[in-house]
């Protein structure tokens, strides 16, 4: 890197990456729990993609039945701590809370769920679920992200032999590697991995299917296979200079930050983040918190079309990230290292097939942005090369096609869920897919 940002002191790093939403104290949790109206057939429950019985788990916090509260939560969602911290609650459960209708602050469902789950893990995961006797069937799961973990937990409790194959050295997928530390810590995700393992699920890390183990072997070993591989290679910008040192992928950058070895991460003094999704925001905010002096967000469309959630946008603005809307990168300039990013102004043309107005370059509006680092966050491609190894697996727009009820793919032995079937949604959607797919597998294997 040509100009790296100055390293911060350990206490500055700790402060910058401290959790945005601190945990409830027992008193404040009970006070908040008591504020819940205990709605019947509640709207928050319906708004939750995993349909956690929210008012019931909150009531249990109010009565001091924390173990019961954790059980209610886990019955619907196996990665509930991650969801408690990383879910966009404003647009899901808390957004649906009836208090909004009364013009009052909604119940802080995310923080309450976290309170119950934190206690559960602090107490060493007292057993709440007993697996059924073994049914003699075996399921292999590719990918130990939230979809795979949820599918594995559910199947193991039904009596299946479950093995999860994970390419990375730690399980958890993006829960472990892709969430900003000020939202949640890596150990939270690893605790959820431990919980799933406690049901007898074997997780083989550093085992990439197609490399350490072949597809054929997998098919021989297991009665069914669940694909929860998520998305893989980040989309290329396709502009000159993309190979220069100092051009990084947002997910790799975030991945480094979750290891908490902040001092060893090089971040430019001036940084450009390309894209304006929630991952882009995380990357921009993290760069700023690592000590970058100036962080620009480069986005082709206007603020209105920006895919990031409102609260993410606010977070970045509060961190001093500078948004450059209707601006597209044209080339990265530099000899060996990034020295500048050439951009061009865009105007919005006619709506495209998604209904979003298509950005069109404004002629002769190029300008140079002096930066030392470019973080790319323009989406991920589906792992096409891997998926093509699976016989008869149909994809559409890069996404695996599944039966919406059973999650069975066009290859009847294979089931799939999570980002690889939806193109990249929330953890909570993956958790739901995984669980539903487990039941789909069960129905198919036992012809229910």
């Amino acid at each position, binding site marked *: 890197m040509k100009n790296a940002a100055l390293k911060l002191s350990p206490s500055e790093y700790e402060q910058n990456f401290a959790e945005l939403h601190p945990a409830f104290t027992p008193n404040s949790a009970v006070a908040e729990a008591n504020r819940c109206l205990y709605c*019947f057939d509640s*709207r928050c429950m319906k708004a939750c993609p995993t349909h956690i019985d929210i008012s019931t788990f909150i009531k249990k916090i*109010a009565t001091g039945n924390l173990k019961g509260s954790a059980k209610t939560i886990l019955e619907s969602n196996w990665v509930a701590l991650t969801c408690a911290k990383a879910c966009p609650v404003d647009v899901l459960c808390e957004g649906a809370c009836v208090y909004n209708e009364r013009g009052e602050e909604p119940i802080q469902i995310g923080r309450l769920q976290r309170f119950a789950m934190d206690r559960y893990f602090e107490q060493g995961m007292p057993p709440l679920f007993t697996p059924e006797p073994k049914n003699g069937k075996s399921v292999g799961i590719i990918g130990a992200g939230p979809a795979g973990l949820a599918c594995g937990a559910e199947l193991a409790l039904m009596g299946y032999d479950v093995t999860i194959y994970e390419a990375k050295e730690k399980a958890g997928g993006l829960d472990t590697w892709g969430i900003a530390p000020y939202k949640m810590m890596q150990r939270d995700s690893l605790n959820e991995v431990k919980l799933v393992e406690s049901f007898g699920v074997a997780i083989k890390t550093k085992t990439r299917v197609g490399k350490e183990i072949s597809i054929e072997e997998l098919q021989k070993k297991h009665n069914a296979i669940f694909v929860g591989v998520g998305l893989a290679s980040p989309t290329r910008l396709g502009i000159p200079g993309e190979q220069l040192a100092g051009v990084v992928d947002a997910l790799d950058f975030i991945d480094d930050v979750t290891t908490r070895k902040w001092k060893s991460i090089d971040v430019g003094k001036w940084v450009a983040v390309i894209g304006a999704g929630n991952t882009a925001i995380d990357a921009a905010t993290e760069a700023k918190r690592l000590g970058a002096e100036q962080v620009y967000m480069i986005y082709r469309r206007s603020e209105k079309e920006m895919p990031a959630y409102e609260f993410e946008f606010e977070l970045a603005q509060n961190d001093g990230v500078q948004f450059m809307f209707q601006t597209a990168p044209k080339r990265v300039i530099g000899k060996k290292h990034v020295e500048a990013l050439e951009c061009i102004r865009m105007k919005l043309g006619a709506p495209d097939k998604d209904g979003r107005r298509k950005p069109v370059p404004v002629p002769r509006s190029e300008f140079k942005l002096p930066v030392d680092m470019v973080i790319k966050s323009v989406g991920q491609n589906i792992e096409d090369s891997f998926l093509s190894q699976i016989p008869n697996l149909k994809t559409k727009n890069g996404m695996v096609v599944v039966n919406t009820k059973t999650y069975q793919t066009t290859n009847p032995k294979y089931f799939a869920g999570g980002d690889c079937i939806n193109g990249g949604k929330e953890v909570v959607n993956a958790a739901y897919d995984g669980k539903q797919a487990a039941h789909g597998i069960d129905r198919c294997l036992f012809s229910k």
Partner: protein
Amino acid sequence: MVDLSINCGGIRSPNPFWLASAPPTNSAYQVCKAFEAGWGGAVWKTIGEPVMNVFNRYGAVDYNGQKILGLNNIELISDRPIETNLKEIAETKKLWPDRAVIASLMVESKRETWHDIVKRTIDTGCDGIELNYGCPHGMSERGMGAAVGQVPEYCAMITEWVTEVSTIPVLVKLTPNVGDIRFPGRAAKKGKANGISLINTINTIMGVNLDTLELQPSVGGKGGHGGYAGPAVKPIALNMVSQIAIDPEIKLPISAMGGVSTWRDAAEFILLGATSVQVCTAVMHYGFRIIDDMVEGLTNWMEEKGYRSLDDIRGKSLKCIADFGDLNLLYKTTARIDESKCIQCNLCYIACEDSAHQCIDINPKEKHNNGSVLTINQPKIREDDCVGCRLCFIVCPVEGCISMVRKDDGSVTMTWNELMKQLPQPVTWEALRQFQAKHGIEIH
């Protein structure tokens, strides 16, 4: 201009708010501080026989995160000698001539002992005496407090011993731990009391600690019933106060207490016949400073309603008290939901479905919200089936969302007592059903 001054059986004070005989009135320091804050009167913590207190005296009921819904105590009467208390009463009265200073007394049940303490009390210059016939713990086992209040004959006898020597007004404080509050009330009247104070505290065990399995509070592993007070007891006190107020045999001024925490509570007690109101638990929770809002709130309310003095409102709601047999059976209401206010919590639905008469349906309804359409569950009352029980109205968390709408036109009325005079006796289900059918009442 609103006049809050009162005369309760000969005891005058600039406002109706008195501190009850309790820990807040333990000393001259406290009472003077309370008067400084604006309290109209104070009933001194009961003085009398030698006692010694234990530690861990108080217990409380918290509910849904709210502290001290009810407060229980096993503290005894004043644990300071009679001389000290009388001296401080005299000093306090001298400093605060316009406030009501009332001495609460409790001594052994001997005529001479009572005569002696009454005379010494009068010498302090205080405005009145309150006889503590109410303490349910500690003293009652020694034949005092509630042991007197629970036996009308003792109550009358001791009151008479006091009134035969007292030159100042005497109030008798009643215990609620009786079957019918009117009997000790009538006994006080018989003993020539000038007024009645009620209610004292209610016998309670506050709870069991689920870790130690001991009672709470626990005094070295042991505990027992204490006297319960605070917001939770207010409805019990309102009932007992009104019973004393409407009893034709009693007709004495009432100093009411039991869960008075705000000016609203005070106004309710006064509307049911009280002259002064006494406060303890709310002060124990928040301090003397609450008097500011009590005086101001009551004054503002009276001004808004056009009342000039407490005489204008005293007992004004007593005329509404009726026996069940005199209630109009043909006064009909139905619950109605204002869908524009409904937040779809469905608490009304589940309450009606599980605990009432299954007359709320949930219908899917489209709701437009910032351009997006979502389907919500809209509860709706089947008014023809609604028995007007009011449960949904009570559980609804949105003010003004569910209302009880009158259905009859008031042209026909019939009370149970009237109906029983019309129908052949003993009344049969068939006869009742015919009456209901005639008036469009269907019990399903």
